[in-house]
């Protein structure tokens, strides 16, 4: 049997490999949405908070699965919730695409709030600006529930680690730790995608920006269709 340290390293490297091989394709549209919508703002803290939220959910799921000693049991209970999250993320991406393209007169919830007039607007604008970064944390917490093959596979390992541990407490810690390591491993790939989408020349050209918005809408619709087929 592998030592605990080796298992953590294995999960970290698995997350890293899966991040580049799988997450870019499946979760790329979400981080690209954030990047494009943040416009001139730095993507670093919003993305960091989003991933922190996502990893926190993985850790919680890891603990839950390890305590239950079964992935299938937990997955059966959260399946409908995951479906809802998938629909939500699809609708979210479509709405963001519509807002970016200027086809939807809604304020950009996670973007800059320009030219507020009057002190109430200014104050509200500042408040929203603070919220705009913080909002990425609950968003990450929620989207961490998105159904994902490699996450399920990692959870299988957490369930086994939970069963192999000497006590329920150690099993819980092992499950949480392994999912934390896995989640951290997936961050570099998604940060890279976000950084590429954040490139100045990409955002400064209206036609590219609008094309990006349309592609986002398409990605969002695919998310929704997949959710209903899930």
């Amino acid at each position, binding site marked *: 049997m592998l030592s605990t340290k080796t298992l953590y390293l294995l999960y970290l490297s698995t997350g890293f490999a899966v991040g580049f091989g799988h997450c870019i394709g499946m979760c790329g549209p979400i981080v690209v949405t954030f990047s494009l919508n943040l416009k001139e703002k730095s993507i670093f803290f919003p993305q960091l908070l989003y991933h922190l939220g996502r990893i926190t959910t993985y850790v919680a799921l890891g603990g839950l699965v390890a305590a239950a000693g079964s992935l299938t049991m937990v997955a059966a209970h959260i399946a409908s919730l995951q479906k809802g999250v998938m629909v939500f993320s699809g609708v979210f991406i479509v709405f963001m695409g519509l807002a970016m393209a200027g086809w939807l007169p809604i304020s950009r919830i996670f973007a800059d709030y320009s030219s507020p007039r009057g002190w109430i607007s200014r104050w509200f604008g500042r408040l929203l600006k603070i919220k705009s970064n913080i909002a990425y944390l609950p968003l990450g917490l929620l989207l961490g529930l998105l159904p994902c093959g490699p996450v399920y596979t*990692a959870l299988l390992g957490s369930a086994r680690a939970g069963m192999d541990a000497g006590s329920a407490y150690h099993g819980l810690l092992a499950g949480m730790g392994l999912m934390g390591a896995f989640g951290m491993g997936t961050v570099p790939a998604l940060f890279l995608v976000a950084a590429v989408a954040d490139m100045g020349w990409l955002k400064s050209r209206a036609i590219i920006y609008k094309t990006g918005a349309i592609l986002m809408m398409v990605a969002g619709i695919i998310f929704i269709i997949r959710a209903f087929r899930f």
Partner: protein
Amino acid sequence: MKHLRILLGAALLTAFLLAAPGLISAGDKYQEMINCDLHAGPCTLALSENAVTLEVIPRPVKAMQDLLFRVTLTEKLPHSTVAPYIDLGMPGMNMGPNRVQLKAVGDLVYEGRGVIVRCPSGRRTWQATVTLPDGGQTRFIFDVIY
């Protein structure tokens, strides 16, 4: 002009919504690699001097449920103390390591429990790579019900 643009947009969106499910399912180009129908029963593949039979129970084979994997060989392994194992994955997609460790339950029969996870992409073609220690590997590619 504005109404025309809205109508055109709505038509494009409707066309996409109607076409997308077909496009998504057509994306599973790996279906043609399927060499085994595990829903129907056990499958046998040759591996040098040995013949490896894989059976998955219960049938039909569904994702996200506890499954029993049974491997039967026709010849004894060179190092009979080391049991074979199965790596589950999808062709062309990294799903992370998912190994089913098998235990000998008979002279040439090995069993282990595992789960085939569900991929939200909708792709249902999976592969079970059976490894015989010092005896090589063989890949069973099959359909899974989601």
